[in-house]
């Protein structure tokens, strides 16, 4: 058998060949990655757009929830600066007011639409997919024009972009071209002929501007949404579990288009928990979007779990085993009686207003206890105004061990699913994030 003799000369040739291949590869990659800048324009005058276009743009922007990510806490609307925690580090949203120097004031309509569809800034640099352009490229041209008109007529605010804080080497934006090669293949929405107009309108809004699956679908290691059978099987948003919306929905009472409409419009429905965490701002946006559009979204989302709704009983048994749960968790039961029962026990003032009983709250049915622990520690604000559902925070009242006892009691009383584990550690993790007194 002939053995290859690895002389110095052979190694040198291989190394030179390898280096050349690398250079060609890098060159080709940078060629793909390069996007040219588009010329700046003088900021359009406010009267450059018809009123009908502006009101349509406002409604579409509410459904897309642009203002939520593009506004810092207590900041000027659309001026950016909100920190977005991702598994890859922290991104800061940018200013999308028409300020020419720090916002999008000198962006043409073409530059705006390229950013929404291809994730490329006016100057040609790649944008991170925290801007869900994988969804926005499904939006029709005329709707993007209307959103452009709406944004270009907001009050301009000077707010320079804040430096992102990402793990190495993700600060190098040309790498995003590789991500896009792998994951950015969505096309403009086409209606399904076997579905009615309302369903198709809902699918268009939910898959496009609404970008519902950004949170409600799992993501792969590269941070791209999983599709196909995994779509809508549940994800994570800012530490909250975004429950599955497909057949594996944890809802005790199956969602219907009517209950989803009520929930999306008001933040609560009689048989499902309240909108908390990142869902609060979504409801805030939808509470002022056109009613027909919200009904269409509800119709589409309800259809995702239609298989389950078809087989599940219409009025399922609602678990509430107070005696057994108190026996198993006497400390939790006592904490519940003192801290929670005033609102959540049968006959409490809140319950007589038709608010959902805890057996129907998805947070108590999920595999992970995160939402229950977050709701207890941080509480949540009413998303639609003072009359909406709200919960006070208990971080100062209860220790991590007490939160764990309480969560264990709630799970055993109001759910048939297996007990949660490591509750105290989970409570400590959430508390660490919360620096408020």
């Amino acid at each position, binding site marked *: 058998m002939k053995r290859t003799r690895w002389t110095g000369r052979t190694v040198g040739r291989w190394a030179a060949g390898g280096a050349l291949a690398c250079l060609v590869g890098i060159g080709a990659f940078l060629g793909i990655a390069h996007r040219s800048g588009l010329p700046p324009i003088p900021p359009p005058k406010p009267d450059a757009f018809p009123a009908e276009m502006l009101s349509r743009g406002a409604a579409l922007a509410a459904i897309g929830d642009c203002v939520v990510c593009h506004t810092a806490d207590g900041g000027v609307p659309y001026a950016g600066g909100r920190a977005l925690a991702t598994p890859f580090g922290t991104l800061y949203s940018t200013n999308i007011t028409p300020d020419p120097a720090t916002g999008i004031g000198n962006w043409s309509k073409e530059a705006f639409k390229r950013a929404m569809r291809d994730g490329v800034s006016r100057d040609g640099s790649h944008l991170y997919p925290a801007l869900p352009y994988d969804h926005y490229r499904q939006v029709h041209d005329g709707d993007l024009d209307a959103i452009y008109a709406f944004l270009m007529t907001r009050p301009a605010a000077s707010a320079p972009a804040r430096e992102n804080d990402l793990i190495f080497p993700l600060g190098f934006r040309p790498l995003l071209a590789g991500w896009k090669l792998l994951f950015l293949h969505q096309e403009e929405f086409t209606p399904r002929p076997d579905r009615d107009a309302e369903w198709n309108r809902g699918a268009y809004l939910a898959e496009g501007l609404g970008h519902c699956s950004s949170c409600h679908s799992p993501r792969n290691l590269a941070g791209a949404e999983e599709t196909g059978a995994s779509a809508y099987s549940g994800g994570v948003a800012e530490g909250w579990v975004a429950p599955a919306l497909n057949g594996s929905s944890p809802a005790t009472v199956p969602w219907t288009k009517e209950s989803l409409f009520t929930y999306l419009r008001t933040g609560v429905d009689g048989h499902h928990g309240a909108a908390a965490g990142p869902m609060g701002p979504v409801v805030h946006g939808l509470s002022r979007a056109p009613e027909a559009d919200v009904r269409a979204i509800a119709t589409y989302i309800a259809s995702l779990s239609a298989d389950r709704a078809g087989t599940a009983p219409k009025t399922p048994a609602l678990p509430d085993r107070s005696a057994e749960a108190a026996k198993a968790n006497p400390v939790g039961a006592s904490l519940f009686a*003192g801290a929670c029962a005033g609102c959540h026990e049968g006959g409490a003032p809140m319950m007589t207003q038709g608010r959902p009983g805890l057996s129907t709250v998805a947070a108590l049915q999920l595999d992970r206890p995160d939402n229950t622990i977050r709701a207890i520690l941080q509480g949540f604000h009413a998303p639609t105004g003072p009359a909406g559902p*709200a919960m*006070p925070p208990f971080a100062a009242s209860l220790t991590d061990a007490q939160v764990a006892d309480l969560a264990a009691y709630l799970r055993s009383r109001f759910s048939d699913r297996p007990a949660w584990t490591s509750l105290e550690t989970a409570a400590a993790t959430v508390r660490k994030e919360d620096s408020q007194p």
Partner: protein
Amino acid sequence: MSVTITVNGADHALDVDPSTPLLYVLRDDLELNGAKYGCGLGQCGACTVHIDGKPAFSCLTPVGAVAGRRIRTVEGLGSAGAPGLLQQAFEKEQAAQCGYCIAGMIMRAQALLDRIPDPDDAQIRAHMQTNLCRCGTHMRILRAVRRAVALRKGTQSAQEVRP
């Protein structure tokens, strides 16, 4: 069942159901009547006391949850004869109208000053947001908190304490 709690530095052994709200124990058993029952739902803040230095709704805190933890009430900040800084400031600004919310307001503000001795106006407003006053004296309450900050610094006369 016996529960021992520490309020304003003094230990109290109580024969009480551990699920009893701390507010009831403070008012009915210890006769510390500063904290008030407003809504009983953690929405108004009239019952605010400190637990381990942090402001909490005592109406929603079971007494069993605070055994062995430090509780401070408005009575712990000073007395009618020797009022604390915030109490003086609230009096000077006449921040109380009916006065029902004031003990909670003062305890909420005290928690801020313990953490940030010289808060700016945005910090004061954000921090005080959870406490409600039905009479609408919020502007005076904000002035009182600013006055307490100035009193502590000892650098400004009360008249100058304006945003």
